[in-house]
């Protein structure tokens, strides 16, 4: 009854309606919830506002598919390859749709989420002074030698993590980017995970639990759900896959062919993974952390 486990299609249908503000790709290059993003595309979600820091190819894919009305982010492109071609087409030619851009820096988008997490209208910072980003983003205001970054409150944050339990206690490791503040700022969190584990595993280390379980609305067991992004301890980054996407998405037809092959033409992540040599990407050199003792009596 308390369990939050569901299939990806159900989690996206129930918790990410059209017009939602969605934070994802919050750890920058690793742990990007590509599987969840592709389900958003398959379900034809529209008018989304995407929120993120340096945002790798998934933002570009969602924009190309026409799901996105506004991007509030520090960077949108293909981290190892450069420009995001769908992002360019949307901004330069309104293809497939016009796109509103609210530029941030990595620091300022983090502060925008901390402002929402602490429920204040804005937080001050010394970054962005002297940058024209202040001119184009109405959510940033300079005053008294400081920049005031308006709160950004996502309706939902989508995170891919290494392991979670059915009640939404999440363990993630590696660099966290802006994941924690996004989860605290969001109304709710959708978790996709490599491993669905027993609560005795997550509760054995409460300091590693990333969010309060009260924020987590859905837990989707989706191994490989972050491909082609890396997952510490599970998968290496598939650089070639990013390169192939960059080349094929250069023109609209190429992008649409790519989308058909990897998103529209596959029913779910399992089918997608059947077309990837994920074994070649699997991490084989294990480096286990030293346990700590929560002994109490």
């Amino acid at each position: 009854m308390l369990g939050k486990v569901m299939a990806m299609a159900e989690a996206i249908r129930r918790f990410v309606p059209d017009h939602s503000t969605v934070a994802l790709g919050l750890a920058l290059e690793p742990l990007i919830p590509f599987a969840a993003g592709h389900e958003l595309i398959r379900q034809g979600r529209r008018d989304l506002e995407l929120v993120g820091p340096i945002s790798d190819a998934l933002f570009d894919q969602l924009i190309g598919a026409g799901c996105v009305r506004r991007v509030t982010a520090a960077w949108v492109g293909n981290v190892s390859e450069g420009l995001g071609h769908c992002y360019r087409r949307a901004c330069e030619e309104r293809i497939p749709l016009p796109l509103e851009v609210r530029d941030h820096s990595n620091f300022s988008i983090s502060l925008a989420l901390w402002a929402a997490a602490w429920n204040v209208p804005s937080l001050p910072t010394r970054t962005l002074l002297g940058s024209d980003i202040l001119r184009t983003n109405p959510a940033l205001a300079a005053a008294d030698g400081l920049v005031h970054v308006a709160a950004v409150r996502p309706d939902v944050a989508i995170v891919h993590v290494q392991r979670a339990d059915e009640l939404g206690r999440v363990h993630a490791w590696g660099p966290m980017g802006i994941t924690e503040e996004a989860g605290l700022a969001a109304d709710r969190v959708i978790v996709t995970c490599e491993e669905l584990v027993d609560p005795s595993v997550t509760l054995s280390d409460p300091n590693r639990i990333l969010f309060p379980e009260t924020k987590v609305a859905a837990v989707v067991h989706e191994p490989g759900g972050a491909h082609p992004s890396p997952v510490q301890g599970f998968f290496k980054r598939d650089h070639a896959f990013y390169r192939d996407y960059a080349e094929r998405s250069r023109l609209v037809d190429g992008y649409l062919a790519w989308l058909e092959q990897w998103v529209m033409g596959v029913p779910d992540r399992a089918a997608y993974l059947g077309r990837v040599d994920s074994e070649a990407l699997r991490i084989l050199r294990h480096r286990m952390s030293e346990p700590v003792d929560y002994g109490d009596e």
Partner: protein
Amino acid sequence: MATSSHTPQELMVAVASREIRDGDLVFVGMRLPILAYAVARNAHAPKARGLFEVGLMRDQPAEAFLGTMGDPPNVAGALWATRMSNVMALMAQGSVDLGFIGGAEVDRFGNLNTSYVGEPVHPTVKLPGSGGGADIAILSRRWVTLMSHERRRLVDRVSFVTSPGYGDGSPHWRKRNGLLGGGPVAIITTLCVLRFPELGGEAHLASVHPGHSVKEVRAETGWDLKIADEVIETPPPTDDELAAIRRFDPEGFWTRTA
């Protein structure tokens, strides 16, 4: 001792690595600077530390090739895996000695544009944006940018300042505008190295890479470039530097492709 056979990217990495002083806390960023950090750490800067906005601090360079700063080899053995806002806190406190920023377009005063070519409302080219670039440009003690030397990239004034250098070049522009960090010290291109006066201002040609000329540099630069009294030839990568570069980029992903 220098070797003749190296790519322009390999030279840029070697030059960038020499900007890192021993003991520096370096905000590393992406691509070539990741290699520059590895080269410096293995040569003249064994006590440097690297900071990555993804949320990492390292001493030793990663043992394997990195396509991004968030790749698993960059996390294993890290000194700190944390939130971006904690990494930015250190930079906001003035603890970052040197930052690297990738540039699409730079002007004579070291301002970088990685956002819009043309009007932001109807850009002719939408570039990816700041990432951490603006943060590094404003908050690090000194920074360096690397880019391909093309007349369309080195312009008199950028139309959009994503990451501020010395603004309009007027004295103390950064201080007057409340920018904490010191600003750019060098622009490393595929042809040469441009440097800035101690107190900031306008870039000048400091050294030309082997096989290139002042004339060529001027022709590829979008403003009337000042020339240092003594322009030297950029010292090419040493064998040790090349060996290190090729160890950390074995397939030439970053240094042997266009």
